[in-house]
């Protein structure tokens, strides 16, 4: 088997003196949807942000497409084919929807921005209707769509999603997971962090379970979904 697209090897991350990641290793292969599930405070977001270089890993190695990016600066990591829809969505509230998307494609020329806007508007027709609206005035679901759309504007090869379902109505969640599937079908690799373990595992090819800063289990999505311990801990019996 060829080299994975993304790999963590024994990565440790600290917030001050608190060790948030205690030696994490995982891999994501090209074309996969891989999910990371775990309880609040288990280290899901920390893992994702460590990949983005903020905070920087204290030790261990993170490789993306064969290159060691562990000590690279955040903006250089994000220019290299990775994009994120972060925890809390973090759309720029005072910028219009269109401007938010343009920020996502900051390094593209005008022609490429047009193409990418068209692609995002096709995935999320709602964003086209709202393109002149200030992002801060939109609903949570719309902001989530915008955060994903903004991430896609840089044509990432690896898309990171941090709890895209948080606080959204079931119907919207279903819609967003459907779109994540479509994004993967277009050839983008997806790394999905979720508390909504049921949906995430149903969608993902493979999954990792994180507890207290350590990966405690990994398997295919369907195997984890069927696992008795997982069902008990994360899927409500």
């Amino acid at each position, binding site marked *: 088997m060829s080299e994975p697209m993304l790999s963590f090897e024994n990565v440790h991350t600290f917030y001050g003196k608190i060790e948030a990641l205690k030696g994490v290793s995982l891999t994501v292969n090209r074309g996969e949807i891989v999910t990371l599930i775990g309880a609040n405070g288990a280290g899901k977001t920390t893992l994702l942000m460590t990949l983005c270089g903020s905070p920087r890993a204290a030790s261990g190695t993170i490789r993306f497409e064969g290159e060691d990016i562990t000590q690279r600066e955040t903006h250089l990591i994000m220019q290299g084919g990775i994009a994120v829809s972060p925890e809390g969505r973090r759309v*720029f509230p005072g*910028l219009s929807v269109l401007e938010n998307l343009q*920020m996502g494609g900051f390094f593209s020329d005008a022609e490429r921005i047009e193409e990418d806007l068209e692609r995002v508007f096709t995935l999320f027709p709602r964003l086209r209707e709202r393109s002149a609206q200030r992002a801060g005035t939109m609903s949570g679901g719309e902001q989530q769509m915008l955060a994903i759309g903004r991430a896609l504007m840089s044509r990432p090869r690896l898309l990171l999603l941090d709890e895209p379902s948080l606080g959204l109505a079931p119907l919207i969640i279903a819609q967003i997971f459907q779109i994540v599937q479509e994004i993967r079908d277009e050839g983008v690799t997806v790394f999905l962090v979720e508390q909504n373990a049921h949906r995430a595992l149903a969608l993902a090819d493979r999954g990792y379970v994180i507890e207290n800063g350590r990966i405690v289990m990994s398997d295919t999505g369907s195997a984890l979904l069927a696992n008795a311990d997982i069902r008990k801990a994360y899927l409500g019996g």
Partner: protein
Amino acid sequence: MNDLLPVLAQQVINGLSLGSIYALIAIGYTMVYGIIGMINFAHGEIYMIGAYVGVVTITALGAASGAMPLALVLSGALIIAVVVTAAYGWTVERVAYRPLRGSPRLVPLISAIGMSIFLQNYVQLGQGARDISVPPLLPGNLFEIDVEGFPVSLSLTRALIIFATLALMIALTLYISRSRMGRACRACSQDMGMANLLGIDTNRVISFTFVVGAILAAVGGVLIGLSIGKINPFIGFVAGIKAFTAAVLGGIGSIPGAMLGGVLLGLTETFASAFLPTEYKDVVAFGLLVLILLFRPTGLLGTPDVEKV
């Protein structure tokens, strides 16, 4: 009664030109605050350096060829002052603030005060602590009209101040609202970390705001030198405090607010000194500040910090 109208008209002209200078400096305070949440107390000194570079250039150009066209001397002085002052603004951020990024808010503030004292003394050492006079480049009036027996005039220098400020404000507003870099500035002021996660080198955006602030302050410095006819190394202190006040008055972080606050403060001051003993002008100006902040704590055009979901 019949002498009130010309006095009012004249004070509006004076107030607008003073307010324009405040507005030019206030933009630097407000942009830097908007983006990194710190008050750059060395900004008044940047303005003072702009004034000095302007005078030195005017003197040098004038001495080199007495017959150099006026427009050339003036635009040469403005361009050189802008370039040199922008370099100072950039360097101040690089040397005094960037190494302190991520430290508690008080730390860069102290560093800013230190930078302010340093620059003041640095110019004193190089240029002396006394007033130096600025060659009168633009004597005369754009117009002088007679209103009911009293003259109302707009000097060429004041006209230049008002129109140059107006043009710069329009250009800046368009640039910030339309350009790619302007969009990045606004994005960074709303969520710097997120801009970074989009691949943007936020340090470059921060440097950019310092450079823009310094450019506008330099124009203000050159023009005030021409208007008053003399400058000294201490002009940055009072002007800086006034411009900072203007920025707070308009709503710190807001560019239109800084423009409005500057003009309002300039008008208030000139009117106060026209109708009250001159010593009261600062009392009235700062009284206005207190009054407005009591009723609008975020300033006239400021918005409370946008809730981050």
